[in-house]
């Protein structure tokens, strides 16, 4: 191993990415195949956590922490709330899936097709690690170049909030 942490062109980052990617993909497959609704939600936590690890390896620090905070913290909790509020059975359910053939065709086709396309495009090329995506860097980018989308997103959040309230209000005559 040379000082840059490479073994025959494979860097430590590559090894970490493969490991975290395997965890993420395995958990993702369990999310879509699990017979327990609650366990699917918990596997989703593993998948999202693995992705946060991938972001860290790809030097996207801020995104990784936002992922942990928003996805693992908020979105999954919301989903588990929905599982409880809709009185999902705690044990295994047999009626969660449709026949699998269409999903296998489309999902497998999309996944493998995209994978073939990207592998063909990037081969075994190497890139240097970019400067880390710290809060300072992302904040400067966000508020120099992307201020308008940022404001639009805040309006959209407000709209989503109002929409969710209107939808979940009991209809009055």
């Amino acid at each position, binding site marked *: 191993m040379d000082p840059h942490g490479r073994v025959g062109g494979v*860097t430590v*980052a*590559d090894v970490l*990415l493969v490991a975290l*990617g395997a965890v*993420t*993909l395995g958990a*993702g497959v369990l*999310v*879509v195949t699990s017979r327990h*609704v609650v366990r699917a*939600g918990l596997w*989703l936590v593993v998948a*999202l956590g693995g992705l946060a690890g991938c972001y860290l390896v*790809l030097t*996207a620090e801020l995104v990784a922490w*936002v992922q942990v905070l*928003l*996805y693992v913290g908020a*979105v999954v909790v*919301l*989903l588990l*709330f*929905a*599982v409880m*509020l*809709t009185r*999902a059975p705690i044990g295994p359910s047999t*009626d969660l*899936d*449709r026949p*699998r053939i269409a*999903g296998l065709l*489309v*999902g*497998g086709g*999309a*996944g*493998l097709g995209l*994978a073939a396309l*990207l592998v063909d495009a*990037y081969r*075994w090329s*190497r*890139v240097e690690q*970019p400067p880390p*995506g710290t809060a300072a860097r*992302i904040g400067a980018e966000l508020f120099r170049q*992307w201020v308008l*989308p940022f404001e639009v*997103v805040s309006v959209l*959040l407000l709209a*989503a*909030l109002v929409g*969710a*309230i209107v*939808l*979940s209000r009991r*209809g009055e*005559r």
Partner: protein
Amino acid sequence: MHPVIPYLIAALLFGVGGYGVLVRRNAVLLLMSIELMLNAVNLTLVTADTTIVGVPRSGQVFTLFVIVLAAAEVGVGLAVILRFFRLRASVDTDAVGAADDPGPLGSAADAAAAGAAGDDDGPAGAAGDAVGSPNRPTPYENGEAR
């Protein structure tokens, strides 16, 4: 670092999510599969941030936007699911009728559905349209029954 590795992970994760969207019948599990697809896109954006040369690297900013959009989407999606659950006591997406499906009875069912949808709001009202359709024998609780 070889960018092909995260790209490959993202592509396969997108396929897994797409499989889940098509196969799952439980609406909450459907939302989880959509989250997987969104996260695959996020991973693509973060990886593109490392491979892009020259122009300002903005992939991570886009990822933040997508995360916020996903949070909003989950909020509205859960409101729709809970509304649907209150109407039908089920979260089975197969129980959702097509809103523009008039059903064999035609005008009578349409009129009833229009009446139900008129004072109901949002997608739940649209879902209520198919209630009058006679090929769904279960006596669903619609707008009037609340």
